[in-house]
C-alpha cells in the first residue's frame, strides 16, 4: 500500500558514503579514494556545469524551443562520479537522462538538445565518444550493453562497459535478461541503476520489495548501494566495479541511491503524486552543496573560485542556448536518409515523388 510519508529520506545503513551531506569526509572499509585538490575542484566544476546545462534546457523547453526535456536535477553526482570513473576505452550505454555522463564523454550538449528539440533522434557517433545513443524504450539498452561487453571480452584488452537505467527499468524483462546474460557469460559490464525513487508517478515500492542492489545476488554477482548524491562515493564504487570487470571478475550492480528533484520530464506535474516535504528533505542532501561545503571547509577552493565557476556556467548556458536556437530545422529530404545502409528503390521513389509534390507549392 502506498504511504504518504516522504521516502528515502533516512539513508539506509548499507549505503556507501565518503562525503556526508554536511560535507564531511568519512572513511569506508571497502572503498577509498585519493584525489588531488585539482581533481576535486574539477568534479565540482563538472557538477555545476551540467546542472547549468540542465537548467538552460528546462528554460528552453518552457519557451517552446524544445519539445520536452528530461531533467537530471539531483542526479549530477551519480552521473559525474560514475562518468569520471570511465577510461577512454570503456563504453557507456545511457537512458535519456544521462546528460552528465554525456558531458564526461565529451558529447556536445547541443547534440542532446537537438534530440529533445526534434531535429533528429540523437545523431552523435557512439564510437567517437564511446557513448551510445540515448535509448527511450525502457531497459532495452541493458541487453545491448551486455552484448557489447561480450564483444570486449572476446577482443581482449583493458575495457569494460557501463549501462545506465532507472529504478523503474528494473522491472523490465530486458533488464532481468541482461542480468542473466552478464552473469552466465561473466561479461565485463557494470549495471549502474540510478534509483531516483520514482518512475514517473510510481514510487519505488511499485517495483520492488527489497533494496534494488540486493537483486544482484539472486543473479550471481555483487550488488552495492552507493550514496548517489556523493560524487566521491560514486566515483570510488564505479571505479572498483569497472576495474573488477576489466580484470575478468564479471558484472556488478551499483544502485546509486538518489532523488529526482525535478519533474519526470517537462511534461510532468509531480504535485499530483508526491508530497513537497520529500523534496525539501532531499534538498538537504544536494550533491553540489555538499561538495561545495567540503571544498570550503578544507580550503581547497575559495569564494573567488566558486564565482569563477558560476561565471563559466553562465557563459556555457548562454552558449548552449545560442547554438540550440541556431540548430537548422532538417530539410524534408532528411526524412528519407539513413533508413537503410544500401539504396532502396521504394524509398527513393517515395522521396522523389514527395519532393516533386513539395516543389509544386513553391511555384
Amino acid at each position, binding site marked *: *500500500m*502506498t504511504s504518504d510519508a516522504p521516502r528515502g529520506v533516512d539513508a539506509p545503513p548499507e549505503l556507501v558514503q565518503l562525503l556526508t551531506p554536511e560535507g564531511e569526509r568519512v572513511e569506508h572499509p571497502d572503498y577509498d579514494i585519493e584525489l588531488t585538490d585539482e581533481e576535486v575542484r574539477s568534479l565540482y566544476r563538472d557538477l555545476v556545469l551540467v546542472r547549468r546545462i540542465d537548467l538552460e534546457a528546462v528554460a528552453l523547453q518552457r519557451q517552446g524551443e524544445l*519539445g*520536452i526535456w528530461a531533467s537530471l536535477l539531483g542526479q549530477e553526482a551519480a552521473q559525474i562520479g560514475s562518468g569520471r570513473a570511465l577510461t577512454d576505452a570503456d563504453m557507456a550505454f545511457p537512458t*535519456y537522462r544521462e546528460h552528465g555522463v554525456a558531458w564526461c564523454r565529451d558529447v556536445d550538449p547541443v547534440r542532446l538538445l537537438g*534530440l*529533445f*528539440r*526534434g*531535429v*533528429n*533522434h540523437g545523431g552523435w557517433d557512439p564510437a567517437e565518444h564511446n557513448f551510445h545513443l540515448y535509448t*527511450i*524504450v*525502457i531497459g532495452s539498452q541493458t541487453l545491448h550493453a551486455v552484448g557489447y561487453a561480450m564483444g570486449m571480452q572476446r577482443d581482449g584488452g583493458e575495457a569494460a562497459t557501463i549501462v545506465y537505467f532507472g529504478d*523503474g*527499468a528494473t*522491472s*523490465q*524483462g*530486458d533488464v532481468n535478461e541482461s542480468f542473466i546474460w552478464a552473469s552466465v557469460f561473466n561479461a565485463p559490464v557494470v549495471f549502474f541503476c540510478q534509483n531516483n525513487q520514482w*518512475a*514517473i*508517478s*510510481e514510487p519505488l515500492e*511499485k*517495483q520492488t520489495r527489497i533494496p534494488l542492489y540486493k537483486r544482484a545476488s539472486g543473479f550471481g554477482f555483487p550488488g552495492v548501494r552507493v550514496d548517489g548524491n556523493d560524487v566521491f562515493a560514486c566515483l570510488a564504487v564505479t571505479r572498483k566495479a569497472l576495474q573488477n570487470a576489466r580484470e575478468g571478475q564479471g558484472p556488478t550492480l551499483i544502485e546509486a541511491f538518489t532523488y529526482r528533484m525535478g519533474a519526470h520530464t517537462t*511534461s*510532468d506535474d509531480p504535485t*499530483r*503524486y508526491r508530497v513537497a516535504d520529500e523534496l525539501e528533505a532531499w534538498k538537504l542532501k544536494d550533491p553540489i552543496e555538499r561538495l561545495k561545503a567540503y571544498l570550503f571547509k578544507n580550503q581547497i577552493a575559495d569564494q573567488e573560485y566558486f564565482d569563477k565557476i558560476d561565471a563559466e556556467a553562465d557563459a556555457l548556458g548562454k552558449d548552449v542556448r545560442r547554438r540550440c536556437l541556431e540548430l537548422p*530545422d*532538417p530539410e*524534408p529530404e*532528411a*526524412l*528519407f536518409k539513413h*533508413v537503410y545502409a544500401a539504396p*532502396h528503390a*521504394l*524509398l527513393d521513389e*517515395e*522521396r522523389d515523388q*514527395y519532393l516533386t*509534390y*513539395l516543389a509544386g*507549392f513553391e511555384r
Partner: protein
Amino acid sequence: MTTLTLAKALNEGLRRSMEDDPKVLVMGEDVGRLGGVFRVTDGLHKDFGEDRVIDTPLAESGIIGTAIGLALRGYRPVCEIQFDGFVFPAADQIITQLAKMPLRSLGALKLPVVVRIPCGGGIGAVEHHSESPEAYFTHTAGLRVVACSNPADGYSMIQEAIRSDDPIIFFEPKRRYWDKAEVDLAAPGLPLDRARITRPGADLTLLAYGPMVKTCLEAAAAAEEDGRDIEVVDLRSLNPLDMGVVAESVTRTGRCVVVHEAPVFTGFGAELAARITEQCFYHLESPVLRVGGFSTPYPPSRLEEYYLPDLDRVLDAVDRAFTY
C-alpha cells in the same frame, strides 16, 4: 448532452464500465494517482481504489501477461500502454497468448482484455511516442482492433470494448485527446464493429479511422469549395472490417482514397484497396489511392508535419483520383 474532450469521454466510459461491472479493472503504468500521462484514468484510483485501478511495475509484457491471468480468473482488465511505441515489449503476450488462447481451449476460455493504446503523431514528441502500429495487430487473428476518432465514440466504444468477450486492441488518437464535442451519455452507441458514414457525399469516398477522420472531414469541406462532394467513412473497427458500409459507399461514389498515418507500404490501406478492388471493380472510376506515412521510421518532431498526411496531401490524392 455534455461537452467532453475525447480524454474525458474515455474517462467517463471507463467510469461507467467500472460502476456497471465490479470485475472491470484498470491497469498500467501511472494510471493510478497520476491518472495516466494523458489523464484518461483521472480520478478512477481515488474512487475505485487501488485494487481496481492498478499502478503496475514498469513492464509491458507483465501488464498484458498478468491481465490474461486476471481474465482467466473472471476479471475484465483494461490495460493502458503508455504510448504506441511501448506496446512492443508486450507483443509476445499479445500475439502468442492473448490472441490465441481462446482457440487453444476450443472456446472454453474467453479473454475479455482491452489494451488501450494512445496512437499516432502530431504532438511534437520524441521517438517512439507517435507511432501507428495497427497493422501489426490487424494481421493477428484472434484480436479485434478498433480506433475511436471523437468523444462520443470514445465514450461508447470503450464501454462496448469492455463488454466484449474477445481481446481488443483499442486505439486512441492522442492528438485528438483534447478535442471537444457534444456527447449524449444516455444514447446507445453504434455497435463496435460498424463503420459510420460521417459525412455523406456522392463523388468520392475517403476512408479513415482514428486521428485521420478529422483531417478527412476538413479535406472534404475544402473540396466542397471546388465543387466536389466527398463522402467520409470512419471505419471505427479495423478487425473485423465493416466491408458492407465500405463497399456500398465506394460502389456509389466510384472513387476511393484511403488515409492513415501509418506507412502506406503493407499498411492497413493495402487491405482496403485490395478488398475494394475485388468487390467493387466494375464500379470503380479510378484505382483506390492511398495517403499515409512514408516507408521510414516516424521522424523527429521537426519533420512530422512533412510525414503526416494533411489536408493538402489528402486533396492532392483526391485530385489525382479525378484524373482517371
